[in-house]
């Protein structure tokens, strides 16, 4: 066989000397690979978006809803059920989720806007080890009640109650740049200078009797924007006298003064789903004049202003829904929470926290039954292909079922579309391959003399074959590169068009194409392979040609 360097040089020279043949051969490959890369990247992005909306690597086991005389008689999902599921050979992990079983309402200042929202029915708990999306979540998403002898858990005076509001906003930390002021609720500050209008020197309830009822909380949206931290503070006012309360706890981003225990406690860490962030971006932010966050709102705000930007209060036993009463054993109380990140493991619409918080609250407000019943069990299968077997076992032997997954249906649709596009692309490539074969047969015929000369001066049959296949491979590589570049170009143009002409909608991607390495590398490999296949028979014919005959026919 001839040296590889000489082979490469000869292949390149031969390719360059007949550009007409080259472009005729490469055209089909160009179109085929462009379609291949374009469609695969498009469906890849569709799959990625879909997986963001519906994580597909897990299934949720739920109990079929059964009601008897208006009462829920559904099968209970408990620890025993979890253990039975875990014992199945196809099951990798089984993680229970527990929903908040009683009303709760949330309130928090967000970017200068006073938000009130329902938490009951929109909150659940899950094992913290199951939620490990990023370092911050790994560090903060845990049951802080289990931390013994926390040095930051010091005694404190909780914020005053607001007689006009069930739940007060979560107080801010004291801005460092500000001069010390007399909060009236926290530790006594140095005496302030007298201010006209009486800003905060009359400390009502300075004996620490939180919630004396004498303070009137004013909605303070945006009023604290000049407070350095950029977040609102609770401003109470008695008559014409304002009383400010700042979070007195050490590390106030993470700790708050608990109303009941009168000690600093770590805020309840919660995570949101990408769906919630998208809903905020698309449905809420615009209508409420709030900032948009295209990528990851929570991470963005936390990076800018720390966890303080994401704190809020939860009124356990309260509700924002007028007329709906709560049937709880315990009187309502307030806890504080903080959003620590966005997780694919969070409930789609709502907040997710470590399961032990939910368990304790359910126990406190609803009793043992609520504290031992799970809302669903998330099961990760060792092999997704065993899903049907597992599903059948659940129905037949456990009386349970898998939650209907829109994601799976969408995934199936996208899979079918992807296969369809792939078939179209491969059909184009096959036609291109036949075209290349045809062109190369013509070339072999036209280049008989050249082949004969090469054989006469020492080329082996293998040399001739490799030269022809090398030329075919060059067509594939160059055609493939042009096809990939065209797909990139087309994708970029369509992204630009979509950016400027298609209005925002939930989960609208920044780019509609995901040009993964394996896609373009696969495209290049396919184009080369198809061209080599196309050139195979002509190369074989060229190699088998008797040199004497090749030379004689001129």
């Amino acid at each position, binding site marked *: 066989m001839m040296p590889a360097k000489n082979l490469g040089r000869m292949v390149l020279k031969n390719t360059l000397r007949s550009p007409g043949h080259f472009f005729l051969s490469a055209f089909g490959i160009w179109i085929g690979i462009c379609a291949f890369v374009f469609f695969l990247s498009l469906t890849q992005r569709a799959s990625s978006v879909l997986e963001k909306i519906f994580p597909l690597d897990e299934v949720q086991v739920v109990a079929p809803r059964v009601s008897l005389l208006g009462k829920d008689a559904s099968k209970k999902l408990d620890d025993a059920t979890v253990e039975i599921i875990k014992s199945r050979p196809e099951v990798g992990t089984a993680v229970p989720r527990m929903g908040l079983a009683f009303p709760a309402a949330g309130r928090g200042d967000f970017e200068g806007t006073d938000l009130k929202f329902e938490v009951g029915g929109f909150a659940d708990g899950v094992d913290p080890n199951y939620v490990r999306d990023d370092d911050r979540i790994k560090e903060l998403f845990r049951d802080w009640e289990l931390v013994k002898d926390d040095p930051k858990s010091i005694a404190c005076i909780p914020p005053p109650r607001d007689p006009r509001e069930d739940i007060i906003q979560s107080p801010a930390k004291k801005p460092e740049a500000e001069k010390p002021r007399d909060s009236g609720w926290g530790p006594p500050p140095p005496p302030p200078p007298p201010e006209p209008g009486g800003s905060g020197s009359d400390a009502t309830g300075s004996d620490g009797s939180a919630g004396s009822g004498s303070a009137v909380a004013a909605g303070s949206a945006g009023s604290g924007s000049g407070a350095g931290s950029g977040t609102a503070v609770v401003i109470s006012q008695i008559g014409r006298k304002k009383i400010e309360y700042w979070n007195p706890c050490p590390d106030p981003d993470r700790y708050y003064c608990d109303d009941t225990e009168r000690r600093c406690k770590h805020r309840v860490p919660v995570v949101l789903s990408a769906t919630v962030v998208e809903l905020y971006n698309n449905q809420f932010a615009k209508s409420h004049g709030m900032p948009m966050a295209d990528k990851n709102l929570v991470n963005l705000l936390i990076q800018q202003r720390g966890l303080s930007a994401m704190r809020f209060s939860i009124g356990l036993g309260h509700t924002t829904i007028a007329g709906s009463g709560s049937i709880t054993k315990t009187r309502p109380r307030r806890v504080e929470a903080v959003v620590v990140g966005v997780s694919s493991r969070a409930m789609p619409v709502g907040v997710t926290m470590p399961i032990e918080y939910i368990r304790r609250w359910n126990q406190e407000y609803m009793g043992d039954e609520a504290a031992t019943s799970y809302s669903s069990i998330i099961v990760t299968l060792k092999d997704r292909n065993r899903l049907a077997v597992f599903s059948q076992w659940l129905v037949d032997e456990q009386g349970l079922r898998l939650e209907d997954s829109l994601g799976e249906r969408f995934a199936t649709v996208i899979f079918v579309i992807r296969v369809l596009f792939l078939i179209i692309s491969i059909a184009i490539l096959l036609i291109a391959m036949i075209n290349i074969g045809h062109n190369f047969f013509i070339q072999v015929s036209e280049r008989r003399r050249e082949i004969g*000369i090469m054989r006469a001066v020492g080329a082996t049959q293998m040399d001739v074959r490799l030269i022809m296949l090398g030329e075919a491979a060059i067509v594939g590589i160059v055609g493939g590169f042009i096809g990939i570049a065209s797909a990139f170009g087309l994708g970029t143009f369509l992204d630009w068009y979509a950016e400027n002409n298609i209005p925002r909608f939930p989960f609208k991607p920044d780019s509609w194409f995901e040009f993964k390495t394996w896609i373009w590398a696969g495209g290049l490999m396919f184009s080369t392979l198809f061209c080599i296949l196309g050139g195979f028979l002509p190369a074989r014919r060229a190699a088998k040609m008797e040199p004497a005959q090749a030379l004689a026919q001129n």
Partner: protein
Amino acid sequence: MAKAPVVRLRDVTKSYGTGTAKTQVLRGVSLDVEAGELVALVGQSGSGKSTLLNIIGGLDMPNSGEVEVLGSDTLKAGDARRAKLRNESIGFVFQAFNLLDHLTCLGNVTIPAAFAHDARDVEKRGREALRRVGLADFHKRFPGELSGGQKQRVAIARALFGAPTLLLCDEPTGNLDSETGKEVIDFFRELNSRDGVTLVIVTHERRVSSVAKRVIAMRDGMIVETSDEALAAAHGGPA
């Protein structure tokens, strides 16, 4: 011990086509060519001269018989071995020149190096080959820019590039005018006498065969005479 012939053929047969279309081109040809010989193969068209030359050069394969060239049994040798023999030890000169139009003169001359392992000083050797045929300044020219005689000289330079032991020429002066043809013949004679290259020349022309040390006449696929008389028979008169 007697020196082995450069070419040794025994009972070589060759036919083309099958059935009624079958044409027997060679009918049991046996021939020895010794080292340093200048042999002219003469005969009428269709007598099998070119086929015999192609079989000697490994460009064609016989149906039967024995072919030994430069000590190699080319029937038993594989394609790679035959190609190596052509690349390193055999040069070809054709009537139609058979130059590659897209290559320069130097490119044409050095093309055997593309298929050779450990080819060294390729350009230098190519230029030297061109110089030997009197075309030292033509290395950058393309075949389309040359006359017939110049093309044939480039083809000869290509044949000489690998310093062959055996030069096989098929009607080398067939497309040349008499003056140029004479120059080519003189060159071959000099190559044979000075460098000791063995030449087998297929020709119709008397002036070519007149310089041969031996003339082999062929008719209907057989060697009919191997002598000076053959020369006369081939050209219709006494030598």
